[in-house]
């Protein structure tokens, strides 16, 4: 040919007309612009009026309070925090605590949910009924009630610190939480991590080479002895050469509580268990629906190829089911994140509890604090759903849909 395709005329104006004006054409666009202007004007009026009114009532306004020192303490912080830090730091502490319980909750909920779904689909009568019972019992009871149950029932069953249950005098369990030895970094840590990273990278390279050989030339290579040597042997050798990467600080009873070691507070445990078991019941149903949506001919096709039931599920059914599962699964992840705000009932210091709760009542700046808190939840939700959309898009693409 030799002649490039003619460039299409610029579409921007036309697109704009279609998007805003619809069938009404440019008139429609004008109407939309006027409408937008009116909305903006109303918003401006409301905000400036609110500001004037707050001022005349002498209610403090603005975000200056974020620089003031908070002067209250929080019992679980992922970043260093003390009472003399600012309200902004409280905000960060709250966000991190919310993220911690959400992420851990989502992981557990997904694992339990998939497990229960497979139970319900099992041909074994007992196993499938147990799965069914779990779903019906858990999803029909209010979440707040379940969280309180996990908190108060579990607390009541645990002993006081002085009578802790202990495992090898290293891990302690009592009504202040689980106390485990905390690792302290030693000089050998860097070498150890480098060796581990090297092992992982080399193993991955080996795996991709093995797959290439398998699909390209039909030669199966046994790589696991090499991988084992790389992942275990290499770090072991560096440990011998450079000394141990970490030593452990063991918890010891001192006064009322344990000193040393890392403590997982019971509020975190109760909230995570409550949120993940509850959400898992819904996820189980979503997964079951997704798997059942795959035509049973696919299962039969798998068997006729000589694949085991597990392999058929893993290689044929689940990838197709994921297309159906991902969108409602995203909803459940978002629900779990938002439900984590029930933390306030059991004293877990999440964002709502420490920032929209304590900080709000200490400063009285309800509007600013609630706007910030809502903004954070919105951002977390949007980010989660963006990640899930990308995942869903990749699945659809790999299935050629």
């Amino acid at each position: 040919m030799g002649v490039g395709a003619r460039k299409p005329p610029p579409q921007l104006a036309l697109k704009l007309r279609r998007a805003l004006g619809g069938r009404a054409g440019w008139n429609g666009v004008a109407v939309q612009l006027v409408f937008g202007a009116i909305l903006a004007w109303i918003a401006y009026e409301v905000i400036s009026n609110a500001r004037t009114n707050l001022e005349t009532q002498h209610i403090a306004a603005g975000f200056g309070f974020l620089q003031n020192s908070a002067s209250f303490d929080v019992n679980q912080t992922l970043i260093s925090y003390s009472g003399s830090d600012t309200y902004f730091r409280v905000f960060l502490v709250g966000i991190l605590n919310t993220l911690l319980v959400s992420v851990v909750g989502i992981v557990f909920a997904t694992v339990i949910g998939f497990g229960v779904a497979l139970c319900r689909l099992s041909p074994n009568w007992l196993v499938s009924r147990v799965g069914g019972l779990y779903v019906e019992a858990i999803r029909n009871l209010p979440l707040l009630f379940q969280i309180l149950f996990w908190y108060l029932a579990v607390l009541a069953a645990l002993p006081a610190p002085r009578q802790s249950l202990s495992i090898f005098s290293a891990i302690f369990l009592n009504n202040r939480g689980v106390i485990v030895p905390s690792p302290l970094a030693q000089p050998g840590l860097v070498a150890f991590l480098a060796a581990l990273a090297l092992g992982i990278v080399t193993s991955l390279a080996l795996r991709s080479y093995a797959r290439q050989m398998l699909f390209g030339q039909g030669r199966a290579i046994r790589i696991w002895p090499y991988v084992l040597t790389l992942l275990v042997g290499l770090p072991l050798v560096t440990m011998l050469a450079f000394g141990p990467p970490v030593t452990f600080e063991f918890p010891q009873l001192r006064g009322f509580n344990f000193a040393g070691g890392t403590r997982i507070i019971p509020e975190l445990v109760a909230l995570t268990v409550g949120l993940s078991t509850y959400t898992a019941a819904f996820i189980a149903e979503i997964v079951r629906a997704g798997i059942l949506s795959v035509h049973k001919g696919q299962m039969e096709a798998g068997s006729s190829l000589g694949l085991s039931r597990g392999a058929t599920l893993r290689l044929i059914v689940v990838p197709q089911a994921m297309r159906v599962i991902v969108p409602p699964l995203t909803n459940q992840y978002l629900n779990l994140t938002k439900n984590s705000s029930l933390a306030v009932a059991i004293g877990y210091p999440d964002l709502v509890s420490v920032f929209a709760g304590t900080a709000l009542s200490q400063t009285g700046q309800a509007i600013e604090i609630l706007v910030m808190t809502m903004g954070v939840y919105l951002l977390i939700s949007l980010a989660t759903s963006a990640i899930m959309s990308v995942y869903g898009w990749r699945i659809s693409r790999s299935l050629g849909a």
Partner: protein
Amino acid sequence: MKRVTLALSLALAAGLSAQAAEAQTLKTIKDRGMLSCGVSQGLPGFSSPDDKGNWTGIDVDVCRAIAAAVLNDPTKIKFVPLSAKDRFTALQSGEIDVLSRNTTWTVSRDTSLGANFTGVTYYDGQGFMVKKSLKVNSALELNSASVCVQTGTTTELNLADYFKANNMKYEVIAFGTIDEAIKAYESGRCDVFTDDSSGLYASRLKLTNPADHVVLPEIISKEPLGPMVRHGDDQWFDIVKWTLFAMVTAEELGITQKNVDEMAKSDKPELKRVLGTDGNLGEQLGLTKDWVIRIVKAVGNYGESFDRNVGAGSPLKISRGLNNLWTKGGLQYAPPIR
């Protein structure tokens, strides 16, 4: 969720009303025929509902006295139970006319919340409660303890100050309501429960075995508890302020629920002024001449209310202490009604 609703209504009230701070509270209440009073979610002696839903307590008596003075009926009150966190937002948004909910008077609350304290109903101080079995005799022995507290209170701030000042470590577990905090304390999650000392005595009654718990002798803060009203309505501020002073004045003059009618017949000039048989002090406040009579008939004088709710005549049995009249070594002192 209540907090979000309150904050939204505050935002709407602030954003949409043209003159939010107009001085209309008294008229609004009279038109409505009902006083809206913010109280606690259940603190025996201060404000708590019985099994029939009747509210009693010293904070409740302040509400009843105001309703009696304004509406001539101490029962025309809508009680709004509020957590420590929600109380100020409820007042700012106009959901309640007065907040009478064991609230500590501090300079930051007086200046930044768009509200004013009208006086002191109860002089309190923060203390600690522990299990007797821990064998602790002083708050200074509490190093490394876990402490349960209600969130959004001055208590939480004093706690941080006290442990820091005494170089002690502690773990704080903050709960949304006092009941949740007490439940966690009782289940052994904390070694210590801290609150205003009046609240400690009240909460101890809720425990399964009150005798197993002891309140430590240290009082670590000043907690003057009093009612609050919104900024911008001076007449309403005066009414709430003088209702409390009227109760104290009645005790100073020996006017009681029983003898108030008789006292009204007296011709001592001071009694005539206070009880409205002479002059128009009540009308100057925007009330009626017999406003003090109404108040005393409804709830009695300050001492009667104290005894009935928290003092000798109640299960709490708290001594008058700082809350005695100034003439008897306490701090309760009313400016003259004249």
